[in-house]
């Protein structure tokens, strides 16, 4: 009964999305306030209905209801509770349901937080959002229904794919989807602005929080996915330039560009057409990612052709939304008036450069990801585009970004003074050189690691140059500096922090060059040196888990002969699926990590061990956390919360709807 309620709620949500897609839009055309007012209520109700559907599926998983095909295929009664929960989205149908749940969540948030948004803009935006919702709800109901029942329920389920039985699954997909789907809000706002024909700096201010939220979650989602791959896949890599990863990187690059161009639009009323274009692009790439992952086209063009139902459906959604929005853009874009002008050397100029480089890198990832598919479909010729291609093309595009990042921040708006601004970065530059030389001297080969580490220091220190200038302008007295620091808007701190985060990640990436790897066969009692540490294999013993059996290798870590910790890499055998996975042993010391993977015992009594010492590796993900934190602080800026840039003594009056 609960399951049927969920199914019914999903159908209702679809019907409601049709209503929400038509009436508020019509109202905004006719200036009918009552029709427009339907938008927010419908958006909230839609979220409630989809939440009921999601809750029903979750309940089926938690209670191991094996009359549901989806639960049978992906769950098991003995599976730990957390994986019963995360198993809800650990499969195609459930993950699509999570997708629309988050979509409607954002719709409801906009409806609730949209009191300051002009009613016409709000109504149109929610209508556009409802079309996306309707398309995906129909997709779920027609091709991927998670509520399909079985006439003859089995006693036990097939269990979830063991590699997905990891806390990573509980966190990664929701974060990633919050990012992916978050860009739907910016998209809807952009489409609404084009439909209404009114786009100004105020629009940029309404949209900015949504772009920021999506960007924060996408950053976290990608970082989390990368860390998950790093500790799960067992060879210590953290980014593989896999199409599925690229699918999440593309919207991130476009979204980052959008965040920056929207700043120009908000502050200077310039780059309007471009900002709208990016808003459409970011979500289009999210949709593309959904298509790539969900259609099976990646496995092979032929696999797609044999069962094209889902693929063709998402492809149709893709064509309608991307095509439709770009047609709208082509029709309405030229009507936008160009805004404020600026000299090439200025803050705006630097942000334009940032946009050029980010979009080019995004296009590079796009080409590299889709080219093999297109070539095979058109000519039948098969080529591989892998990590070496991307490292060769993508990295050179990012070097100028790293160099320009601190510089752009210290340039003035409208017309900047290049030399004068560059002088403010003297300290950062000197420190970068010092750290680079120091690392080259102490760590040695490869030199390129020291160069990039130096660049990272330049980015980190340089990110705070603007803040330093602003707070030390009128004297060096600690009290003045403190009070000025407190007086700075949150967004200034957020920007500095997010940029510094990029530097931190870069440092971690640079340091991978200094990693040490050992591959060897070990006997119990053997000791091996790795980097500054020594590992002793103490024992190899079996252990029993809830739905698996594992073989654990116990090792002791010593540094300078002193015992400092234990590490327990293992191999798990999952009973239901008869599958084996490796669990890497991980220990973090001073931002670096010891990483050990083992196999089962050889006939001769040895076990094969692969171990790494990865100095500073944690900084890769720490940097992403700092970026997201910067985004969060920026989001808390008064200008975004209250809609007014400066602190006013009197509480600003809420603007009436236009």
């Amino acid at each position: 009964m609960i399951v049927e309620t969920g199914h019914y709620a999903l159908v209702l949500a679809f019907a409601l999305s049709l209503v929400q897609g038509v009436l508020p839009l019509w109202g905004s055309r006719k200036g009918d306030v009552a029709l427009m007012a339907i938008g927010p209520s419908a958006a909230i109700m839609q979220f409630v209905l989809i939440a009921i559907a999601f809750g029903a599926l979750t309940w089926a998983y938690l209670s191991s209801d094996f009359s549901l095909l989806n639960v049978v295929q992906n769950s098991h009664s003995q599976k730990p509770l957390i994986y019963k929960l995360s198993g809800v989205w650990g499969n195609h149908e459930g993950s699509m349901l999570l997708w629309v749940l988050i979509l409607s969540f954002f719709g409801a948030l906009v409806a609730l937080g949209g009191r300051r948004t002009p009613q016409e803009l709000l109504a149109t935006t929610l209508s556009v959002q409802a079309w996306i919702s309707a398309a995906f709800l129909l997709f779920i109901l027609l091709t991927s229904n998670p509520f399909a029942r079985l006439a003859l329920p089995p006693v036990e389920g097939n269990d979830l794919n063991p590699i997905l039985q990891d806390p990573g699954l509980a966190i990664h997909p929701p974060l990633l989807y919050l990012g992916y789907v978050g860009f739907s809000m910016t998209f809807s706002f952009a489409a609404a602005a084009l439909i209404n024909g009114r786009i100004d700096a105020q629009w940029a201010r309404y949209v900015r929080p949504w772009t920021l939220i999506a960007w924060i979650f996408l950053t976290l989602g990608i970082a989390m996915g990368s860390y998950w791959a790093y500790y799960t896949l067992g060879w210590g890599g953290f980014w593989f330039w896999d199409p599925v990863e690229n699918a999440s990187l593309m919207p991130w690059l476009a979204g980052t560009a959008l965040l920056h161009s929207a700043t120009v639009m908000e502050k200077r009323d310039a780059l309007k057409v471009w900002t709208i274009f990016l808003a459409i692009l970011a979500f289009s790439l999210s949709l593309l990612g959904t298509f790539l992952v969900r259609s099976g086209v990646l496995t092979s063009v032929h696999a797609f052709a044999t069962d094209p139902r889902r693929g063709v459906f998402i492809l149709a959604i893709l064509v309608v939304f991307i095509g439709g929005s770009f047609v709208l853009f082509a029709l309405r874009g030229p009507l936008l008036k160009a805004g404020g002008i600026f000299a090439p050397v200025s803050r705006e100029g630097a942000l334009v450069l940032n946009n050029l480089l980010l979009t080019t890198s995004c296009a590079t990832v796009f080409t590299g990801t889709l080219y093999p598919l297109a070539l095979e479909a058109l000519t039948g010729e098969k080529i591989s585009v892998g990590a070496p291609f991307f490292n060769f093309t993508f990295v050179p595009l990012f070097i100028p970004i790293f160099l320009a990042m601190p510089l752009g921040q210290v340039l003035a708006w409208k017309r900047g003074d290049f030399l004068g601004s560059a002088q403010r970065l003297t300290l950062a530059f000197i420190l970068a050189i010092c750290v680079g030389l120091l690392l080259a001297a102490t760590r040695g080969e490869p030199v390129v690691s020291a160069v990039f580490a130096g660049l990272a220091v330049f980015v980190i220190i340089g990110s705070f140059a603007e803040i330093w200038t602003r707070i030390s302008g009128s004297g060096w007295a600690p009290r003045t500096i403190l009070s000025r620091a407190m007086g700075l808007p949150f967004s200034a701190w957020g920007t500095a922090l997010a940029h510094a985060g990029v530097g931190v990640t870069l440092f971690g990436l640079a340091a991978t060059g200094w990693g040490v790897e050992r591959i060897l066969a070990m006997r119990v009692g053997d000791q091996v040196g790795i980097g500054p540490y020594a590992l002793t294999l103490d024992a190899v013993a079996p252990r029993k888990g809830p739905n698996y059996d594992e073989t654990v290798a116990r090792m002791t870590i010593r540094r300078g002969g002193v015992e400092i910790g234990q590490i327990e890499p293992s191999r798990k055998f999952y009973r239901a699926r008869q599958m084996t996975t490796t669990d890497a042993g991980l220990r973090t010391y001073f931002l670096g990590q010891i990483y050990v993977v083992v196999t089962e015992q050889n006939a001769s009594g040895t076990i094969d061990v692969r171990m790494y010492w990865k100095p500073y590796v944690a900084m890769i993900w720490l940097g992403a956390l700092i970026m997201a934190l910067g985004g969060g602080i920026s989001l808390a800026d008064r200008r975004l919360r209250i809609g007014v840039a400066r602190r006013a003594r009197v509480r600003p009056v809420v603007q009436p709807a236009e």
Partner: protein
Amino acid sequence: MLRALFASILLLMATGNVFAVEPSELLADQKLEARARAISAGLRCLVCQNQSIDDSSAPLAKDLRVIVRERLVAGDSDDAIRDYLVARYGEFILLKPPLNAGTILLWGTPPAILLIGALALLLRTRRRQADHGELSEEESRKLAAILEENRG
């Protein structure tokens, strides 16, 4: 879910031993071994989803790793080894495709977009400076008149 799907595909590819380079495969000569690793990282495990033979635990990847090392010991250059494998398995084995008629668009797109973008920006800046730069004669006269008026 993305990562999840990716991971599960990898798992399907993996067989029993979830290990890429095995201890028994390693060459005693450190320099040759380092070269073997570098070459392996650029070769695709043909039966895998976007994995190099250095990262893959598939039996085919192991065979290829062994071939690479045998040729290295025999004294082949890095390029000779790659050519040898391309002759046998086609260009599909190279993770960094060579520049030719079929890949010209792949290699050409990034620099083309960068160039077109930069060019478009340059033209735009010039045009707008022309639009807003100097005052026309008419405007100068008007400005002078207004200033004169205010002074008086």
